[in-house]
């Protein structure tokens, strides 16, 4: 289509043959990008004037957070530990459930097309649902508190680990599996001894990575009443108690960085 509108340039080489050079698509892509940007700016009420006249407000808030209020530290520990517990529990249970679901979704292990299709659809639906939304729904079912947060994190972990795991299982070398099946093992046994050893490092590494991300997610779940550090974070901003907010953010940064470096250490060891 594009090539018909803008015919390719003809170049005659010194040897006499002519070659066609396709016109660059860059102008078209740029045009589309610019149009989309202008439309979105119009749609969202983006204005540089407002931005430049009021942006100092943002930095006022940031500066109000420094120095953080160290005396509020004692009130942070319990919610922080709650956050870590929530993400830990959700990640462990979720990763555990993800294994059977991923097996059910991989087309080389399960032969029934219906089961793999349903499992894949369920996984992608769960993955699309933002964690905060599932947490919100969970607060209605399980009441306010850490239980709802744990459930939300668990659902996300199932979808994330499940998706990456079934992709791994589907790409696994099926030779050993077939060999074991031909020796008279059941499919389950063959899976245990032929496929598991191949995917196990990837599985654990994905779960660890997911846990890292979950600590971040868990930090905001308190905004919808699902427990953890988000609860006091929301309160702090609501009361404009910025030094306390600064302290919470500082603690959060330290915790997240610490957990990330521990998990990175183990993930490097696995691969």
């Amino acid at each position, binding site marked *: 289509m594009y090539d018909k509108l803008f015919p390719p340039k003809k170049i005659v080489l010194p040897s006499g043959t002519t070659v066609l050079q396709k016109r660059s698509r860059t102008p078209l892509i740029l045009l589309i*990008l610019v149009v*989309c*940007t202008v*439309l*979105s*700016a119009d*749609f*969202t*009420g*983006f*204005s540089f004037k*407002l*931005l430049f006249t*009021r*942006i100092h*407000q*943002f930095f006022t*808030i*940031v500066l109000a957070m420094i120095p953080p209020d160290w005396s509020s530290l004692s009130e942070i520990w319990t919610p922080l530990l*709650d956050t*870590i*517990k*929530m993400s*830990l*529990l959700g990640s*462990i249970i979720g990763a555990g459930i993800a294994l059977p679901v991923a097996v059910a979704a991989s087309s080389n292990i399960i032969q029934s097309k219906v089961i793999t299709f349903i499992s894949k659809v369920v996984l*992608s*639906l769960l993955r*699309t*649902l*933002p964690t*905060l*939304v599932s947490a*919100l*729904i969970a607060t*209605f*079912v*399980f*009441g*306010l*508190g*850490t*239980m709802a947060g*744990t459930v939300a994190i668990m659902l996300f972990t199932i979808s994330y680990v499940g998706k990456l795991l079934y992709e791994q299982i589907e790409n696994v070398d099926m030779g050993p599996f077939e060999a074991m099946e031909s020796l008279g093992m059941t499919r389950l046994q063959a899976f245990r001894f032929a496929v598991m050893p191949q995917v196990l490092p990837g599985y654990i590494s994905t779960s660890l990575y997911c846990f890292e991300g979950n600590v*971040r997610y868990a*930090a*905001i779940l308190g*905004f*919808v009443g699902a*427990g953890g550090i*988000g609860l006091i*974070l*929301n309160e702090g*901003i609501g009361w404009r108690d910025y030094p306390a*907010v600064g302290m919470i*953010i500082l603690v*959060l*940064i330290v915790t*997240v*960085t610490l957990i990330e470096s521990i998990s990175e250490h183990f993930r490097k060891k696995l691969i």
Partner: protein
Amino acid sequence: MNTIEKQLAAAPRNQRYLWTIAAIVAVLFVWSLTAVNLNQIEQSGLKIAKNIVYGLTHPDTELLFNVSKQSVLYLLLQTVAIAFLGTIVGAVLAVPLAFLAASNIVPKPVSWVTRLVLIVIRTVPALVYGLMFIRVTGPGAFAGVLTVGLTSIGMLAKLYVDAIEELDTRVLESMTSVGCTTFEKIRFGIVPQLLSVFMSVMIYRFDMNMREASILGMVSAGGIGAPLIFAMRSYKWDQVGSILIGLVVFILIIEYFSNRVRAKLVKG
């Protein structure tokens, strides 16, 4: 003992290490169990769960398909606009930061400080930025754009840095040897190497920003989150159903196209 058994016996054994790790994980698991408080589950929980399932399967189709300013379609478009513009803002701001954080371009201390700044930007939850920007621009989609832009910077810059540090310098050396100017080196040596990676990262982030933008409404920063939370708080599960169905379908469509475009970019 035949060769196979010998080989088996020669395999490294780190049982003790594995058991220690397993024990630590088990202890952590039990410790985290204390966070769960089952007696908080109210009797009404089950009934609400039933209502939710009913609402999800019987969505409010009028809300889903009409074309007023409260309709799901309009709000979804607004969410996309927030995500798109936010991605553009973030992508532009991330470029200088990425070059400042690349250890093969700037001295070590500079890159180290920039990396620290990026970690801080990345760790602060998006909703906190949302609440801060509302003080700047007032509630609405504009605050959402700024929030999405700022949160994107962290991840975008981090992935940009990886691309910059993997730059093939041999190309630049050969260009120097044939006498290219600095500008030519940047235009024909560096930009082609980085552009496709940057684009691919941007599209991936746009994908994530869709999800980000859809929850920003909960702090009244525009998008579909606000009507979602209102509908939930007033137990209108059929509306919740229609909003969620619209959102999920929309995100899946965008994910499908972004995957295709990215696959094309990677293949070249």
